[in-house]
């Protein structure tokens, strides 16, 4: 090779060219795929919301969503109303499900989305939530009925440890929440993921506790905190339901 790769000028030129090439390659990939990716994310959100109110294709033990080809129509069928709560004001907004909770948390005057679903004549109030796990964000959707009893839950995470914290999205864990009350002595307290609550089969539905996952203490604590703080934000809304 004729080029002297040890020269400083060559090193700097190489670095500059490399950064420009790699930078434009990544920018190109990102901008071409952006639309497709955001559609995928929107469909996923719809699937998650529907999952929480029990609209899914679950088999005996695993989580199966409505296929993406149907999710748009199913979402329009089952989700009858979408609300945004800001400063205690409840307004209807058909695009409330597109609200980015991460951005709202950072704002001084957050908008709280809430979805109302109807299935077989029964009403579901679906609350989206976001919190912190061990490594990164965790989030979820929980549906409750007008008695403040959980009807379904879906949790997901960005980077919890596979096999440990990542199991919050396993069916056996999420199903444990169904039937748990989020209320205790008239106040919204959420549900705590508890170790050693002497109720591993989850027979006591009014203890505000579900059995924790082994090896996932911090993810579990994060999930408990997410449930109580997020649900409390909707306390006045839930109270207005029981007043009706």
């Amino acid at each position, binding site marked *: *090779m004729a*080029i002297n*790769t*040890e020269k400083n000028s*060559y*090193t700097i030129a*190489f*670095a500059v060219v*490399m*950064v420009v090439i*790699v930078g434009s*390659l*990544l920018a190109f*990939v*990102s901008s071409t*795929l952006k639309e*497709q*990716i955001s559609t*995928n994310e929107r469909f*996923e959100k719809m699937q998650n919301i529907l999952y929480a109110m029990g609209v899914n294709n679950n088999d005996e033990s*695993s989580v199966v969503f409505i296929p993406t080809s149907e999710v748009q129509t199913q979402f329009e069928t089952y989700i009858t109303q979408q609300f945004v709560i800001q400063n205690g004001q409840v307004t209807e907004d058909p695009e409330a499900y597109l609200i980015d909770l991460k951005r709202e948390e950072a704002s001084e005057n957050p908008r709280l989305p809430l979805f109302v679903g109807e299935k077989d004549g029964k009403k579901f109030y679906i609350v989206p939530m976001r919190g912190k796990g061990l490594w990164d964000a965790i989030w979820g959707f929980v549906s409750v009925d007008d008695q403040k009893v959980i009807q379904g839950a879906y949790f997901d995470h*960005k*980077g*919890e*440890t*596979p*096999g*440990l914290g*990542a199991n919050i999205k396993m069916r056996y864990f999420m199903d444990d929440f169904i039937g748990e009350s989020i209320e205790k002595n008239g106040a919204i307290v959420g549900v705590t993921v508890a170790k050693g609550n002497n109720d*591993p*089969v989850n027979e006591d539905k009014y203890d505000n506790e579900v059995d924790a996952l*082994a*090896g996932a203490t911090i993810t579990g604590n994060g999930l408990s905190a997410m449930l109580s703080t997020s649900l409390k934000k909707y306390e006045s809304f839930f109270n207005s339901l029981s007043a009706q």
Partner: protein
Amino acid sequence: MALLNKKDAALLKDPLADNNPITIQVLGICSALAITAELKASIVMGLSVMFVLAMGNVVISLMRNIIPSKIRIIVQLVVVAALVIVVDQALKAFAYELSKTLSVFVGLIITNCIIMGRFEAFALANGPKRAFLDGIGNAAGYALILVIIGFFRELLGSGTLLGFPVLGDPIAKTGLYALGYENNGFMLLSPMALIIVGIIIWVQRSRNPKLIEH
């Protein structure tokens, strides 16, 4: 192997046993501890590393004569990071479900010492074909150990394999559990992965005295 001469075949075979990246070179231990609580995650991680390592080895090998040696580590890092991000974005657009399973591993792949180690030790000094074989071989050696660890940790820790209960139901007390067997929750924690790696190294060295250093 008719397609490959003896030297090339050795590139594929050596890392599986006598020159295994985990048990002999002790590289890539971090991810071997972190994600082997389940067999499925082990397999996925093994395949992802195989893809990235083979591709990255080829790219680095093609550029080996023009990379300035002063910044070669940075160049290697940029190549592996760019490769991983492009793959991740493409998966997000066209195979969303798969990308959700893999997203956890993206960060772990970029920092995997095996990848940097092979770029530095092999791809910088060899042609693209040999570099490709070396990448496949080393990743296979890595994947093999991950699968062994994942198998034992999932079986003994959760009583399942690939998510299927193989020992019965621990809550309803069927199968082995009816006899009083309990899952060992300790197997789910990272230290047990290190102990299993230790056992594998022990077995390997006692079977092959050539590997013992004096």
